[in-house]
């Protein structure tokens, strides 16, 4: 991406919205996480913002020259152009692009309508022609803190302590999920590098960043799929590319993968990965065998731990209908995970 152009674009948009201060400085974010390209912006009080560009057209493998791009101001222009010039299935591309734009829009709405779940969004543009592509841009607050991934990498402690911390994490995250699902939003790309830890003295909080904006991925030469997430943190339906059948149960599945990793350090999808098979089926088959063994390694069984493992098993069911029926029922079950009464020390 041409970051210089992006800086100019963001500056122009900020000025037009009267939120521009001369004291801003820009920093290109070389360490790209998630599915957007971004730059950090700092004001003189060291308040940090982040501007993101979600490129809707980048994974459509069609070369369009720069001159022609000048006239493609919207998704519709882009589709018209493809229809006139390329032998591609426009209908499917149209559905895929609409879904991408929708994910972006829902994220902005969810950010604005929830409190403390996502970073605050200052402004957004749903559809813009930029740098030979069509996409959406937004400016949001940058969260200072570690990602869950960074945190877990350095977490050296007793497994029971990890479980306690994981339960606290689950309680906070499940409430946030309830909040954003109620706004008709599915994150689709929950992963440890998309969860930020805000450690305010003794009160740990988490914020979720970088929503999954559909990715159109070709799995072979004749068929394509729409995908939202990283393979290592995906539900079966996402892994297979059934983008439009993704719902809240998909986020629950991914969260199951995340918390299992939180406790054991093992990413189950990577562990069971083999070419041309669905690792989720393998995980499912091993839930009462090796997956369970790894979970209980180095720890004594207790009623709390057994209950937690049962919840993880339910989260990791391949069939969506076998996971939790509603997000509220999931959050309610998580609330029952209490240290009091645990028989670990009996």
């Amino acid at each position, binding site marked *: 991406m041409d970051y210089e152009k992006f800086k100019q674009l963001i500056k122009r948009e900020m000025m037009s919205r009267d939120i521009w201060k001369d004291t801003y400085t820009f920093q290109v974010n070389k360490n790209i996480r998630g599915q957007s390209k971004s730059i950090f912006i700092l004001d003189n009080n060291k308040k940090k913002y982040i501007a993101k560009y979600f490129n809707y057209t980048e994974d459509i493998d069609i070369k369009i020259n720069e001159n022609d791009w000048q006239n493609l101001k919207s998704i519709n222009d882009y589709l018209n152009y493809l229809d006139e010039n390329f032998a591609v299935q426009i*209908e*499917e591309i149209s559905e895929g692009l609409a879904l991408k734009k929708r994910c972006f829009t829902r994220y902005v709405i969810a950010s604005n309508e929830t409190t403390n779940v996502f970073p605050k969004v200052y402004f957004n543009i749903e559809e813009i022609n930029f740098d030979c592509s069509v996409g959406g841009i937004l400016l949001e607050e940058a969260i200072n803190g570690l990602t869950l991934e960074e945190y877990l990498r350095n977490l050296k402690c007793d497994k029971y302590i990890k479980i306690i911390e994981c339960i606290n994490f689950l309680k906070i995250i499940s409430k946030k999920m309830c909040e954003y699902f109620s706004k008709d939003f599915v994150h689709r790309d929950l992963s440890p590098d998309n969860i930020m830890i805000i450690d305010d003295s003794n009160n740990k909080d988490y914020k979720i960043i970088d929503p999954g904006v559909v990715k159109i991925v070709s799995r072979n030469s*004749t068929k*394509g799929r729409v995908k939202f997430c990283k393979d290592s943190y995906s539900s079966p339906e996402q892994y297979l590319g*059934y983008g*439009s059948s993704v719902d809240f149960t998909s986020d629950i599945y991914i969260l199951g993968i995340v918390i299992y990793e939180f406790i054991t350090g093992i990413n189950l999808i990577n562990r069971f990965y083999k070419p041309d098979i669905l690792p989720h089926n393998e995980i499912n088959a091993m839930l009462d065998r090796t997956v369970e063994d790894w979970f209980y390694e180095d720890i004594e069984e207790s009623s709390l731990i057994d209950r937690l493992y049962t919840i993880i098993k339910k989260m990791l069911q391949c069939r969506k209908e076998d996971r939790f029926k509603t997000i509220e029922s999931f959050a309610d079950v998580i609330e029952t995970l209490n240290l009091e009464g645990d028989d670990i020390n009996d």
Partner: protein
Amino acid sequence: MTKYLIQHGPAKGSKIEKAIVDNYCDGVVFSPREETIESIQNYCNNNFLNKNNTFYDPQFYYARYDSSLYKNLDKNSTYPSEIKRKDWRTRDENLLKYFDNHAEESFSISNHLITPGLCIDSLDWKFDHTLEIYNFCVEKYKKFESYYLTLAIGENMFHSKNDIDELLEDINDEIEFKDGIYFFIVHENAENNSNIKNYEYMDEETLSNILYFLYKLKNMNFKILSAYNFLNAVLFSMIDIDYVSGGWFNTLRKFSKDRFESVDTFGIRKKRYTSIPLLSYFTGELADLISQKINISFMTSGTPYDENFINDYDSLSFVDYEQEFWISMHNVIQEINSRQNIELKIDYVVQIIKQAVLYYDNMMDNFIEEKEISNKLKNSSAHLNKWLLAIDLFKKKALII
């Protein structure tokens, strides 16, 4: 007499304008899923569209599907996301607002009101509510010249004539003001359940029940607009329904359920010529192979694109083929329209189907040894015998002698 309407979709470019100005399509059915109402209203401020040749399908039936499929639909803040049975039963305030909104939007571009309806895959509350909503709209929004009851019916419903008779009876009993029907079939999937890759292919029993259903509705004095059609529009024109519509992409010519579930094809799009003599949507590639042995001018439909198609099918763009589809449909529908009564229309259609079968037989005779080509020809013509059988069954069911 049947008129041809364009089914609006993504990437409209200048397709609609050209087809209407050149006089081979008679109007448009707009969709708020593809474009916001503001954008549609702007587009309607031109001289080739007016409130009589413009229809507006609210695509309310998407409200039963996952919201990730809505595209622009819920830009309208009252769009009833993931509607439930109780919403209409309790006269949910948001739903009523949505109806007001839809009537207002429709009236801004059209004299016709297509009333919101749900996909009907069995005789249950979705059907009952669809009829009730029509009655409600007719009663409440009085300023329209005509009203169209949406009937988006699952293909499986047409497997049994008994179910169809029950549907007809309920429509007859429940709908007092019999004005218009906006009808389309919700197919299980775009290509069909068999191994035959042919958009038109359908078993004869189902197809005859569809024809019977529409014929009976027509006899109840409904005006009928059949939406999302490929070449099967020929059969609907044969029973003299008022409007048929089809769009520029395959998904605008066959409404299928698999669109709602997974997007799994980003395959190569093939250039296809609409051949009226063959009553087929014929790939340019196959025509090219055929032309190496026999002269293919017999398969042309009398359009300005024919010469280029014969000389080099690849010289025509996808957009050209989209227009060619409409011109070909226009030509054959005009022929059918010129027959004075349904018996003559049926005779004519049977005659052109039989002629198409003969053309295919002749091609297959020439390619007996080339298995790949003859298999493709078999696939491409698979619907024709089904059509003949279906017409025969339909005539018996409808007692057309």
